[in-house]
């Protein structure tokens, strides 16, 4: 599997795709991909346009060129909810859960790949079992647990289910197993212990896998809706998806305000995406090749 992956990566680097034949075929191809791109981009553009259209002009729907663009909807949004706080919450929770999953996941991966202990397969089996149960199934009992521990409606409750992810452990264990044992042995001879081998040899070598796990952890947390919906009540603890859904409840027919909220929640992730686009797509493509 590892060999295939390496070969694939090498080939992908050189790959230019098959030669397209006639001019007509080439034009058809370009038209098709551009129409596709328009379908993907236009809804975002429409969101921005709606958000700056004066509320009065929305009855017949907005027009491509806005007559009297206004930031009124954004002002309404600022008054309606602590939107800056909500953005910071979303980013903070996503960064924290990503960091936690990388730390807990890589440590467990090292433990499973490099340490010998009794019942290792049974313990690993438990990890895999948690991987199969989706959060949707756990939402009710998890909520009850948080209530019992008096932790509902706290930042900790938001983070709790994502401190460790079995998916991350699984992916990272594969990567650690791929690191040649000889490197560990050489380091042991030089007097290095597990902690030094882990931090100076293993971690740098599994960086691609760490990036993949980071991408999934961040996107998972950023998009998470059901769990915050269940466990968070206070507006100042809300994350963006939850804030947006409550916004829609308040401004059912005021689409300019709802779209302003949508724009505000797209912008931070769009910036992250623009900066890390290559890694994000590579990370997703990586998990698919198995």
């Amino acid at each position: 599997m590892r060999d295939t992956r390496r070969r694939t990566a090498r080939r992908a680097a050189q790959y230019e795709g098959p030669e397209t034949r006639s001019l007509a075929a080439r034009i058809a191809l370009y038209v098709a991909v551009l129409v596709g791109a328009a379908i993907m981009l236009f809804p975002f553009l429409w969101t921005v346009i709606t958000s700056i259209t004066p509320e009065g002009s929305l009855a017949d729907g907005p027009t491509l060129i806005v007559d009297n663009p206004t930031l009124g909807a954004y002002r309404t949004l600022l008054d309606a909810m602590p939107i800056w706080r909500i953005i910071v919450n979303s980013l903070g929770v996503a960064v924290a859960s990503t960091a936690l999953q990388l730390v807990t996941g890589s440590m467990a991966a090292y433990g499973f790949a490099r340490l010998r202990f009794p019942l290792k397969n049974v313990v690993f089996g438990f990890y895999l079992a948690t991987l199969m149960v989706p959060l949707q199934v756990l939402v009710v009992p998890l909520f009850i647990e948080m209530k019992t521990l008096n932790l509902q409606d706290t930042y900790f409750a938001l983070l709790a289910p994502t401190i460790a992810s079995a998916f991350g452990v699984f992916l990272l264990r594969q990567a650690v197993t791929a690191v040649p044992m000889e490197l560990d042995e050489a380091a042991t001879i030089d007097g290095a212990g597990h902690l030094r081998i882990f931090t100076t040899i293993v971690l740098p070598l599994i960086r691609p896998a760490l990036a993949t796990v980071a991408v999934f952890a961040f996107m998972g947390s950023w998009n998470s809706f059901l769990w915050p919906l269940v466990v968070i009540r206070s507006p100042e603890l809300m994350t963006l998806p939850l804030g947006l859904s409550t916004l829609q409840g308040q401004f059912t027919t005021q689409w300019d305000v709802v779209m302003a909220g949508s724009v505000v929640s797209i912008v931070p992730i769009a910036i992250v995406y623009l900066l890390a686009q290559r890694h994000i797509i590579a990370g997703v493509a990586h998990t698919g090749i198995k």
Partner: protein
Amino acid sequence: MRTGRAKNVGWVLFFLLPSAIPLFIFTLVPMVSSLWVSLHRWNLISPMEWVGLGNYSNLITDPMTRRVLLHTLIYVAGYLPIVYAGGLCLALALNQRLKGRAFLRATYFLPVVTSWVVVALVWKWLLNPTNGLVNQVLGTLGLPEPGWWTDPHWALPAVILSSAWKDLGFVMVILLAGLQSIPGEFYEAAKVDGSNAWQRFWRITLPLLSPSTFFVVVISLINGFQVFDQVYVMTAGGPAGSSQVVVGQIYDLTFRYGRAGEASALSWILFALILVITVIQIRGQRRWVHYA
């Protein structure tokens, strides 16, 4: 072993506990307690009342359960072909020699990083029956204008359409990686043998893409059966329950009707369903998945 036994135990605990403790408390414990709750009648407030398998038998006879299962199946059955066919077309196109390929790929992927709630809101607006863009365009073309999320017949299609739009780029990236791992020599050999493009697609591309296809199908089915966010935001299961899905029903049972026991039982029914379908797929893959 490198170190002595007692020392090793310390290391095992050091490396495993940071993940084992949270997984135990926040996944394993709720799993078990969920099974326990599913055997009780409980409204989250008054003491639990043992009902054995009563919740399960109630759910099986409740017509609402069949409805939400049916809606979830319709969602999956509508979503998967669209997203696979669309993703495959995009992947095939981007696998050609093309200017701006990186830009196009990034553009198609943009909705994937956008959250479900945003996608659902944007599409709820685009599909607004009175002044939404889609119906305006349809109206201008003289085509019928459906009521989308306000019409019981169109609510699920509206959800399916917007979900497919969001995930198209995800499927494309997976399939593109699959396409790029097909050795070019296969195509050259087939060309020498006088095959046409159509034959090469059916005889080489699709069979050798089957591992990626398998991955997409498994992931899409697992995610599809858990669909919730976009339904909750777009239709809240309505109108008149016409788009209610399993997870939406679990949520409503718990937090709207105070029937946490039945909600937990329904969670386990959903889990069993996903598990059975995934196992069937893994068993069945030998028949159609070819690893090069």
